[in-house]
């Protein structure tokens, strides 16, 4: 406990929450509202066809235009929040928790454990991800649930490796030795002392990873392995609009804006969280 810590604490008390956390939180909060109650704001049924308005440009009736089925793009962008926020969270939370715990133990224990986990991590990371996802989805069948499984099987090792590397550095520092000298259990040292210092990169990565998960979901949607039609998902919408980039840009641009905006929300929130953790410890 140095003087800096006390200073940092008081700085935390004095300052309001980090600005990026506030703005990121607002974006994500609004996204969550849209994800939970899309029907409140969507003017149309996102799957309803309108043959009389195929590929209609933005207008008062359809602010974001319509797609090649005459479906309202605005309504589809809004309804896609439900699926994409779900992808962001479900595809990453499991890997984050599991990977962090495993990484912390491995980094702390070292020795044989590290060697064994090292092999598992290596084998998982070095296995071409796409082969694994396509294989798992082909065997289990297409759909979001099986996509989470496929992503999770690989995803956890990224967190584990980040946390383990950081723990290895932290455990050599004086305060960890101090903890051992004071007779704390390894569990306590890991979770009370080392992890809070070592988890920052993992959290920063997690928040980025949520944005990446949406992107991955859209790439897989493009390959037909993610959300199934007629469900609205941004990646699928962008893929649908690819052939119409010159003639009906609105089909792909508006979902693109939604991805950027949501990604920005996650990244701002991530930076804010990182700052908060940094100040607190």
């Amino acid at each position, binding site marked *: 406990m140095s003087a800096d810590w006390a200073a940092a604490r008081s700085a935390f008390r004095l300052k309001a929450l980090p600005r990026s956390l506030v703005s990121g939180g607002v974006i994500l909060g609004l996204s969550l509202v849209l994800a939970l109650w899309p029907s409140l704001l969507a003017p149309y049924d996102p799957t309803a066809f309108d043959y009389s308005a195929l590929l209609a440009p933005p207008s008062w009736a359809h602010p974001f235009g319509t797609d090649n089925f005459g479906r309202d793009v605005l309504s589809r962008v809004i309804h896609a929040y439900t699926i994409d926020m779900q992808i962001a969270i479900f595809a990453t939370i499991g890997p984050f928790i599991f990977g962090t715990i495993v990484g912390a133990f491995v980094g702390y224990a070292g020795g044989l454990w590290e060697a064994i986990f090292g092999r598992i991590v290596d084998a998982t990371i070095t296995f071409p991800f796409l082969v694994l996802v396509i294989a798992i989805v082909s065997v289990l069948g*297409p759909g979001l649930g099986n996509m989470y499984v496929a992503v999770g099987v690989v995803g956890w090792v990224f967190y584990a490796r980040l946390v383990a590397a950081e723990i290895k550095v932290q455990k050599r520092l004086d305060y960890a030795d101090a903890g051992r000298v004071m007779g704390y259990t390894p569990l306590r040292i890991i979770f009370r002392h080392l992890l809070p210092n070592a988890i920052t990169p993992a959290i920063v990565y997690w928040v980025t990873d949520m944005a990446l998960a949406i992107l991955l979901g859209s790439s897989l949607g493009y390959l*037909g*392995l993610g959300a*199934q*039609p*007629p469900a609205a998902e941004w990646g699928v919408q962008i893929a*649908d609009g690819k*052939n119409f*980039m*010159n003639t009906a840009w609105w089909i792909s641009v508006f979902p693109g804006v939604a991805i950027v905006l949501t990604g920005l929300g996650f990244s701002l929130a991530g930076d804010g969280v990182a700052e908060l953790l940094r100040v607190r410890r």
Partner: protein
Amino acid sequence: MKTIARAVFTAALLLGTSLSAFALERGGTLTYGRYADSLFLDPVLNDANVDIWILSNLYDTLLLPTDDGKGVQPGLASEYKLADDGMNLTLTLRDGIRFSDGSPITPADVAWSLKRAAKKDNGIWGFMIESIDDVTTEGDKTILIKLKHPDPAILAALTVFNTAILPQKQFEASPGATDEEKAKAFAEHPIGSGPFVLKSWDRGSSMKLVRNEYYWAKGEDGQPLPYLDGINFELIPDDATRILKLTSGEIDGAEFIPYSRVNELKSSGNLNMELFPSTRVAYITLNVRPQLGGKDNPLSNPKVRQAMNFAVNKEAIIQIVTHGVGKPQTSYMSTATPLHVGDKPLYPYDLDKAKLLMKEAGFEGGFSTSILVLAGNQDEIAASTALQQMWAQIGIKLELQQVDNPTRTQQYRDGTFVMRNAAWTDDIADPNEITSYFVYSKTIDALHTGWKSDEADQLFEASQKEMDPKKRAEQYARMQEIYNAEGPTVPLYETPYPVALSKKVHGFLQIPLGNNIFAKTWKEK
């Protein structure tokens, strides 16, 4: 009268000559953007359209399909005569024809090539010439083909890629112990007699062809074809990139333009957006086995299938999927297939009739079912999404399942699929190929659907030996009637081949069977 006629004739001749010869320019290399690379350039052992559709540029056949894809014209053989009993075919080779390495094409090469193609279990195309019993030669120009039974489609079969003529000596000199190993080695540097020769092949990237100096056919200027010095096939799998490369002038032509871009490219000033008539039909295949996955299968009821057909708004599908490029089907086979019958679109959209049929079939409340969609294929996704909406009107809840091609093929061949998207193009200028797959239950269980009509089966078997064209046409008319009324498909549309070419490119042709013909293609400098 006679003078006028002659004058008209002369004028037409002059006009014709001036129109084509006026601008004709020889030389240059054409760069053509393909969506997928070829796999295996052996005429007999190949498996896919990516090979078939360019093979005729490398390997010539005894006979050639006409430009409309419906008839037969002389190829390496300048004359052919089918005996009256239909059991013997006599062909005469052209004078002085040579392979691309300069060696003469002999009747022995022809006999060997045909026997190799007809050999059982050598490749998957042998069924088209299964009627060939023996091939013998006579003198230095004549080939005699003895048939097991009369075969009305034998002439058409001799235009198909698998009957291409290869040099026996050079093939057998290729390294390898088996026919397949030799074919692999030979196909790396093929020797044929088509208008072009393979110069280099950078797999997955580009294929370069140069003109065959020994090609037999002559151009309009009296000099040997082809006009071009060479063709570069560039592999550009992404549709948008292929089009971009064409509009920026880096390539001269691009195949498989997505339907959604056709109208846009039509209005582009420096491009010709060609829609070549084709034998392609797109349809939904329904598994009609009485039981499926241990449950009763509603699709086994012909009335349900008719209801599903009536509930499909074909015009809307054609708009949504093909952006107006397609036409409604008038029979299970395309209008470009010989002996096609039908002038009215099948099952005009009639929701009331569909509902009534569902009621009669005992499915007033509808049912839940599913369809296999090729993962990421925009056309199939669009068609299936539209069907989902349309069939919901008669209570059918359709679930879309995107799977990759082998997964779908597995379920298809096992007969465990429920419904799937599918498309077909003919390889032969005869209705027997499509009919054998679609209708005749002994080939692949009528598209693996389990559908069977004894009458259609008998008609097909008879038609395969029927040498009277009129009787054969009647047989085909009846088969189409049966299949269109209660068959296991939901026909969607037929479409042309969309190919975009630079305005500088002339004389390129993709015939209804899909073959890309570059022999008479030329390019303005």
